[in-house]
Structures are given as structure tokens and as C-alpha cells.
């Protein structure tokens, strides 16, 4: 007889695995993204079960709230031809399937409860008022300050790379420059030219 926590763990794990499978099998990319959102939610629930509430909230806020919404926008904007991407899926499935099954089998053989079971890795007892948000914050800015700063440099590089790869002046594109439109002078728009009439008007037409 398992307790409620274990039962919840299996429920959330099953949903996570199902959602992850649907991410790669769904025909519609929007469905795939939504299933990924579901997978993140259930992973967050698993973290709550581990009493890592900060990580769970961060996962939901950062991944579901920000990253996946952005991702959904991109998927909706791009016209992805799913049929073309799927071409050859069934032809390669047997090879990928065999390799995948082999890897899963090996992993199960090695990573079964024998080595990573609960008895070999007992959970550490923590005080009831233990705040892992506070603990994470303390570690992040003391012991882990070096990787923390490195991660920020990685983000800076990502910004630079995104700018260099997307921002460029394409030749031959017609566009309006608002700054130039505003700065335009009435003298640039119209030129008043004084010129003589081309021919004299015949009598009677000039009224």
C-alpha cells in the first residue's frame, strides 16, 4: 500500500511521460507546444513533491509563462510544413527504434533502484521553517557566484549573437524612415518654379 505522496508521484510522472511523447508525435505544432506546457506543469508538481517549491514556481513562471508563450507565437507565425518534416519518419523509425530501445534497456539495467534507490540516497531531514528559496539565494551569490556570473556572460553572448545574426540592412528593400519623414522640410517637398507660359493663350479662352 503506497501513501498519497507516492501515488501522486506516479500520477504526475505518467502525465509527464505522456505529454513528452505527444510533444514529438503530435501532428499539429501548436498541440506539441501545448503538450510541452503540460509536461512543464507536471514536472513542477514533481518538484513540489520534493519540497522544492521555488524551483517549481520558477519553472512554471519562466518556462510556461515566458519561454513557451514566445515559442507559441513563433510556431503560429511560421508556416511549418509538417508533412515535409515527417517524410522519412517511418523509414528511419526501425533504426531509431532499435537504438532507442537498446539505450532504454541499458539505462534501466544500470539505473534501477539498485544504485539510485531510496535506501542508497536517503533524503536529508530539514527543519519545518527551512526556506529553500533563501538557501538558493544565499548559495547563488556566495559559493556559486562564479558560475552565476558566467551564466550572465553566456546570456550576453546570446544577445550579441542574436543581434549579429538578425540585424542587417538588406539591399533593395523599400521602406519609410519615420525620422526622415518627420525631419522633412516644406522646401524639400515642393519646389516653386517661376516659368513663362509655354504659349500665349488664344483670345477668349482665358476667362
Amino acid at each position, binding site marked *: 500500500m503506497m501513501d498519497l505522496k507516492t501515488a501522486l508521484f506516479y500520477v504526475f510522472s505518467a502525465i509527464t511521460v505522456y505529454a513528452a511523447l505527444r510533444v514529438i508525435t503530435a501532428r499539429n505544432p501548436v498541440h506539441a507546444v501545448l503538450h510541452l506546457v503540460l509536461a512543464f506543469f507536471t514536472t513542477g508538481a514533481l518538484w513540489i513533491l520534493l519540497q522544492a517549491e521555488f524551483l517549481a514556481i520558477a519553472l512554471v513562471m519562466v518556462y510556461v509563462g515566458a519561454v513557451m508563450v514566445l515559442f507559441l507565437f513563433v510556431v503560429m507565425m511560421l508556416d511549418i510544413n509538417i508533412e515535409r518534416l515527417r517524410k522519412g519518419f517511418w523509414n528511419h523509425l526501425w533504426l531509431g527504434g532499435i537504438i532507442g530501445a537498446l539505450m532504454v534497456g*541499458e539505462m534501466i539495467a*544500470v*539505473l534501477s533502484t539498485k*544504485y*539510485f534507490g531510496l535506501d542508497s540516497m536517503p533524503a536529508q531531514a530539514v527543519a519545518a521553517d527551512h526556506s529553500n528559496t*533563501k538557501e538558493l539565494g*544565499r548559495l547563488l551569490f*556566495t*559559493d*556559486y*557566484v*562564479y*558560475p552565476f556570473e*558566467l*551564466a550572465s*556572460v*553566456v546570456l*550576453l*553572448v*546570446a544577445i*550579441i*549573437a542574436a*543581434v*549579429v*545574426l538578425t540585424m*542587417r540592412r538588406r539591399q533593395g528593400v523599400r521602406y519609410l524612415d519615420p525620422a526622415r519623414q518627420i525631419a522633412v522640410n516644406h522646401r524639400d517637398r515642393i519646389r516653386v518654379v517661376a516659368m513663362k507660359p509655354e504659349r500665349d493663350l488664344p483670345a477668349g479662352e482665358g476667362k
Partner: protein
Amino acid sequence: MLNNFVMPDLYPAAPEIFLLCMACLILLVDLFLGDYQRWVTAMMAQIALVGCAAITWVTADTQVVLTFSNMFVDDLFADFLKLVVYVTVSVVLIYSRGYLQARNLDKGEFYLLVLFATLGMMVMISAAHLLTLYLGLELMSLCLYALVAIDRDSARATEAAMKYFVLGALASGLLLYGMSMVYGATGSLEIGGIAQALHQGAANKTVLVFGLVFLVAGVAFKLGVVPFHMWVPDVYHGAPTAVTLFISTAPKLAAFAMAMRLLVYGLFELAEQWQIMVMIMAVLSIAIGNLAAIAQTNIKRMLAYSGISHMGFLLLALMSGVVGQDRHFALNAYSSALYYAVAYVLMSLASFGTVLLLSRAGYEAENLEDFKGLNRRSPWFAAVMLTVMFSMAGIPFFVGFFAKFSVLLAAVDAGYVGIAVFAVLFSLVGAFYYLRVVKLMYFDPPADTAPIQATTDMRIVLSVNGIAVALFGLFPQAIMAFCTYALLRSL
């Protein structure tokens, strides 16, 4: 709660901090520069590298210093490799400038990405923690992916960048998975802690070997050895030659440092297990690299396959460290690996440098035919290329010969006579395609008679590079002795 925290010692990490500050400064300064003022950016990048070299030189000592909660290590091995990286990157920037200008790629971002990649390499070289090792690797790799794609109008470069990015992400995933297994088995992310846990025999061997397979695969991808070599020819071919020059040189040193930190410093107790994996990869790389290079007509692809075979030789030294329980050969084997890495970078710089030298606006000298009759166009640079090709082929009295010689000696000492003979035989196969370049340069009439357009600084540095390839072969003992000393002080 915060009372037990002590401010980390920033002194050992001074070169990294200086480079980061300089890169941010260049980022700001470059905003205000027009295209015709790009020399300021180039000059500042060189100043940053020279400054780093000065700081590393001044702060180098024979002690092993750990800082940032044992996440950063400063030892003589790191100092030596970092100095080689600075020189390499500096030479890369000098070679690249003219090529970039001719293709309208001479943007400030190129210098920035190169500098940030250099920072990533320094972090990797000084990593004493799996987390920092991984972050350094990602910092370097992200810059490289972007650099490959920097020529937006080239479909081939974009394809190469995509391929590199996808396979690189996969390799990072493998590496992370391996790291998590090692963490699960030893309970430590610190490389020193892992070694200690293994030494005490507390760790579970089955899980460790399982993780080790993934770690070795990740390292092999970054080194570009068979069977994780598929990206190498395509990326070398597709990327702008200036970027190929960069990818083929300094990151190899960082990948070598990563292999040393993970396998030798961390998982030395498992040497018996990883040496077998490394041996298979070494043998395959030497065979496939040399055989595939023969069939290439594009010199960038040819040098890519030649690079794969050279990395195979490097692994040949890594696998010769431990025989049974005997560790007497370790120092000799690893110092010959270090020597090989440095020698390869020196040769790779000169070979891609010559490819850049022959390219000009609207013309890529990337086929073997483009080297026809180089002797009549420029006897001096034909001689430089001749030196490099002889050196890569392992013909005596050039730096490449002694690198190969010391690696083979280490392999024979460790009892791998059969594999050493095999490596020599495939080096002979390799000599064919290196000598083909020499034949094209000296005995064929030139197909392209335009004068060589290169800046004076590039001509001077390339000449010095060629002379170094020739001269270092005359005094191999001095460098080898220094490699041994650096490793001895770091272990």
C-alpha cells in the same frame, strides 16, 4: 547564515576578469565606430589579449591555487595553455582582418564573439568543477555557432552553422547526462572531490562507467574524433575561412584541457575503462581521417580530415598513461599529448593562414587547384606552406615530426606497439595528400596569376609562424621539457 562565507580570492582569476572587462568596453566603444574605424576594435582586441598574457605571465607560479569555492583552479598547466590560447587568438585576428574586410564581414561583433569564445576557453582550461567546465564550454560553443553563421548571405555557412549547432547541442546533452551520472555516483561536482571519492573507493563503479561513456562522447565531439567527427568537414568547409581558422585552432586546446580535467584530473582511477574507449576512437580517427582526406579536392575539407587524424594522434597519447596499475608512464604520455596539441595548433594556424593569404575580394582560394604554381607567384609563401605540409606529414626536423615521435614513443612505452605501427602506416598514407599540395605548388603551372594581396602585418606574422614550425622542430626538447614541468607542477 552568511557568516561562514569568505570573499573569494580574485587574484588567480585576474586574466578572466580583465578579458571580460575589456570585452564589455569593446562592446561599448564599437557602437560609436564607423566601418572605416574598425581598426580601433581590432587594436583593442589585441590589447586585451596582450594584457591577459601579461597578467597570466605575472601571476603564474608553480603552486596550484583553488578559488571561488574550489570551482576555479590556477596551475601551471592552465597558465601555459592560456598563454598559447592568447597567442593563437591574436594570430587568428591578424590573419582574419583582410579576409573579413574584403567580404564586408569586418564587424565589431566578430571581434567580440572571438574574445568571448576566448573567455570560455580560459574558463574551461581553469575549470575545477563540472558546472564551470560546462558553462565555459557553452560560452565558447555559442560564440562559435554564431561565428560560423556570421556571413548571413551564404547558404552554405548557414547550413554549416545549423548542423554545428544541432550536433553541438546534442553533444552538450550527452556531456551533461554523463556529468549527472558521475555526480550521482560520487556525490561531488568538484573535479578534486570526484577524484577523492574514487580514490577512497566509495563510489559505485557501474554507474560511473555508465556516466563515463557519455563524458567521453561529449569530449570526443568537441575534439572532433571518429565517430563524432561528422560535423568537422562540413563546418570547416561551410564557415568563412577566417572562422574555420579560429575553430580549427584555439578550441582544440580548450577541448584538450577539458579532456585532461575530466579524464586525467577527475576520473584517473577509471583510466583502464576510458583508455579503451579512447583507443578505439584514436585508431578509427587516424584511419578514417587520413583515408578520407585523400579524396578531397577542397583544401578546407582536406585540412578538416587531416585535423581528425591529428586529434586521433592526440588521443593516442592520452590512452598511453596507465598500464595495468603502473602509472610511471602517465607524465610522459600526457606531456606528449600537450606538446602535440600545441604543435597541431601552430601548424593549423599556418595552413589556414596560407589559405587566407591566397583569398581576396570575390575569390576564395579553397580548392587544391588554387595552390597550383604558388612557387612562381610567391616563392617565400610556397616555402612556408611546404614547411607546414612537411610538418603535418611528420617529415623529420619539423615540429610535427617530434610531436608524432613523442606520442608514438609514449604508445610504445605503454606496450601498444601494434597500434603505433598502425599509426605510422596511416601517417604514410597521410603523407600522400600533404605532398600532393607540395607537388601542385612547385611542379604545376599557376592557374591564377593575380598578385597576392595581403597586409604587411599578415605577411610578417605568417612568415614568423612558418619559421616557428621549422624552428621548434630543431629544439623539441626544450618545449617538451616545459610541457612535462607544467604538468608535473599541476598534478
